[in-house]
């Protein structure tokens, strides 16, 4: 019945459009049928709309900044993240300046130089000087951006220090598993062919390094102010370990191990106080499309003092016990 009504509505709409067309044609034939020629009046109106748009657009931009900056990610909770946020803001300041200047010129010129009868445009074909200016200035600005960016990049991607705590993050459809390296701080060998319902990471019992490895699901803990090195693996498709609060991300690729490291600097408790939100949690997300439940593949991260962390870990049993 509903479908029938929809079909009837569609048919009626076709008729309605047909009639509208007739009305439209009659109206334009009364006006002399010049519905495509641009008049000076059109130019004047459009130039004013251009100027209005410029003002409205910037009002919209400012409104966006005002209402959405507060809901963006809170301050970076990792050591390198603080520098990264600064760099981001620095870049944004440059970009916003360029955005503002170019848009003011673009829309102001569109407003000012609208076509008037009897007016002639200026024949101005090129100017080596001007073109040099807008080649060299962007080049200098970009050089600055590149230098700052690469400095940060080299720092972030430098190898982790030897005493960083090693944790494996294992991604599969659609959850995460964390494996702690135990007392020796070295992960035992694993092989995808050893995977069973029990041994979901395919850990190899023959490797003595793995005997003290600890497996956790749903939630994992890390100590504050200690460098953590994550070794990332995936079981069947590409996933991506995304730590938005720590400004860190790395893909997990089947058949290879990728790495990433950072030092958390704010504990979960401290962050809850700062945000005045007792329910706040750091979260690990999957950020590479991995299947139908991609959107719900997450794990909670608890950052705590080293003492709390040690106590938490000590209560866990190694996998092979």
């Amino acid at each position, binding site marked *: 019945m509903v479908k029938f009504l929809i079909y009837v509505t569609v048919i009626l709409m076709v008729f309605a459009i047909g009639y509208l067309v007739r009305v439209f044609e009659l109206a334009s034939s009364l006006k002399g049928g010049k519905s495509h020629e641009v008049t000076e009046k059109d130019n004047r109106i459009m130039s004013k709309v251009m100027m209005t748009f410029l003002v409205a657009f910037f009002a919209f931009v400012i409104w966006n900044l005002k209402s959405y900056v507060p809901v963006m990610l809170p301050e970076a909770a990792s050591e390198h993240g603080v520098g990264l946020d600064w760099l981001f803001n620095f870049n944004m300041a440059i970009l916003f300046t360029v955005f503002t200047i170019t848009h003011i010129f673009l829309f102001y010129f569109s407003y000012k130089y609208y076509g008037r009868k009897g007016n002639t*445009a*200026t*024949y101005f074909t*090129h100017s080596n000087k001007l073109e040099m200016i807008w080649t060299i200035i962007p080049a200098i600005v970009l050089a600055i951006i590149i230098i700052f960016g690469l400095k940060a990049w080299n720092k972030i991607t430098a190898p982790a220090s030897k005493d960083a705590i090693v944790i494996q993050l294992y991604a599969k459809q659609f959850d995460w598993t964390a494996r702690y390296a135990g007392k020796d701080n070295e992960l035992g060998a694993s092989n995808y062919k050893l995977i069973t319902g029990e041994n979901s990471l395919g850990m190899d019992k023959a490797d003595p390094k793995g005997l003290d490895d600890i497996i956790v699901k749903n939630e994992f803990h890390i100590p504050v102010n200690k460098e953590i090195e994550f070794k990332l693996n995936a079981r069947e498709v590409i996933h991506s370990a995304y730590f938005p609060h720590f400004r860190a*991300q790395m893909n997990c690729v089947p058949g290879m191990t990728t790495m990433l490291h950072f030092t958390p600097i704010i504990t979960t408790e401290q962050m809850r106080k700062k945000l005045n939100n007792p329910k706040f949690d750091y979260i690990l997300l999957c950020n590479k499309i991995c299947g139908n439940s*991609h959107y719900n593949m997450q794990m909670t991260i608890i950052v705590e003092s080293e003492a709390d962390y040690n106590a938490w870990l000590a209560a866990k049993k190694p996998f092979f016990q």
Partner: protein
Amino acid sequence: MENHDQQAHEQIHSHEEEHHSESFVSKYIFSFDHKTISRQFLITAVIMAFLAMTMSFLFRLQLAWPGEHFWILNFLLGDKWAPGGVLDPGMYMALVTIHGTIMVFMVLTGGLSGTFSNLLIPYQIGARDMASGFLNMLSYWFFFLSSVIMLSGFLVETGPASGGWTVYPPLSALPQAMDGSKLGMTLWLISMSLFIVSALLGGLNYIVTVINLRTKGMSMTRLPLTVWAFLVTAILGVLSFPVLFSAALLLIFDRSFGTSFYLSDIYIGGQALELSGGSPILYEHLFWFLGHPEVYIIIIPALGITSEIISVNSRKPIFGYRAMIGSIMAIGFLSFIVWGHHMFITGMNPFLGSVFVFTTLLIAIPSAVKAFNYITTLWKGNIQYTPAMLFAIGLVSTFISGGLTGIILADSALDIPVHDTYFVVAHFHIVMGVSAILGMLAGVYHWFPKLFLRHMNKKLGYIHFWGTFISAYGVFFPMHFLGLAGVPRRYYSNSAFPMFDNLVNINVIITCFAILAALVQLVFLFNFFYSMFRGPKSVQNPWNANTLEWTTPMANTHGNWPGALPEVHRWPYDYSKPGKEQDFVPQTVPLAEGEVDGGGH
């Protein structure tokens, strides 16, 4: 003038008689004529764009009001994919995937280049047709077939491909991983292979035509910037599409013939697959070796169209003609050595990442030159606000605002926290999606008289532009903030856990603007199809432009010019030249004594 028209009319008449022998099939279906093929591409692209837009409307409903019941979802997708009017997560992925694929390939590559390269290359260089009409015809029909196969994914039981438009393996290679990697993915690969054939046939044809068939006097430095843009685009396509073809072929082998180019150490569906030695990263390299030039294949023709339209309607020469050619070539060249910026966080060597940062940010320089040159072209102009001109100015705006956020993403360190978030979605939609669509629409309004011999309605054009432009920013500007709040792209719902609960209202605003944008496109659809048949007839040179296409008679003359081919005596941008009677001097007008040609270089 009257005399000239009459003469032209007689010549058309004699031509019409000559072609009476042509059957309907050879004239309208398997036509070799560049103008007919151009119209075929355009109409197909308009329909595909409309379908892709409808898909985006469906998944935007889910994003703004997750879990809400919408009868329209149930009506269009049925009980299987939208039970009770709630979008199924697998279908959400499929809609996102097919929306992206259609927009990137069918609309903005096939549709944009196919329409305007075909229409304008022969017209603007003074050729009777493309170098090979037959290949050109094949190019369209491969494109058509590819479009149909892409859509046919919706007719198979397991649904269309749904691994994102980049279809990364192993997700796309393993049918066990998701429904969208079953038959739908095979169809996607077949469709894409046919599409590549079409793009190559078209591209080779464009290159050969521009190089060989220019009329007397049409030196490379007298070519309109549109033709330069189409030429560089075609070269990019010919060099990069074969690489995508190889990527797709290897993926077909992995899927169907048990090879392991991209697969290694995989445990899925309760069993360990006996595959080793492959790497999914190889696919990413091959894909993005096309994928990055591809975004320039999309935007360069739009920039070429904009150059022409801004110059004509400002009644001024394009500022820095040679710098514009230089920057198109620089962008084209650099586009081949930047693909790694899509892969900063795949675990690639950080040093290699640094190299890609450097090359990528270099592209900002020629892009900045282009933007400033457009703005300077407006300066002291006598701007005629045709709908095409509005769209062209809109493109300059979105090209700047979208390009700037690209600087953040090209900077590997800053890319880490925003990679694969909505910040990226906002960036590329503004800089290549919206910009290229605005460029394409500018072209449609401007060359409609050449395509269909009639005019589109101006007022509806104004409504269309402002509606589109405002809602495009309304959709994509707030989206940056979603990305900065850490929302990953391709999430079916942001309410599965509390982290994004404070962002719900951004998604509602975005969807409302998306609906407005969709409604405004209905105005365009009406204007387009209505004007095609009943719009006011156009005169020969309605915009008082200089380029050669406006010297052809207003008829679908086979061979374009009834008599001899025109001879070219000057560059195409002599607008408002001092000492001339009119504010335009067509390219066919000989230089006066002592007159200097070109931009005075």
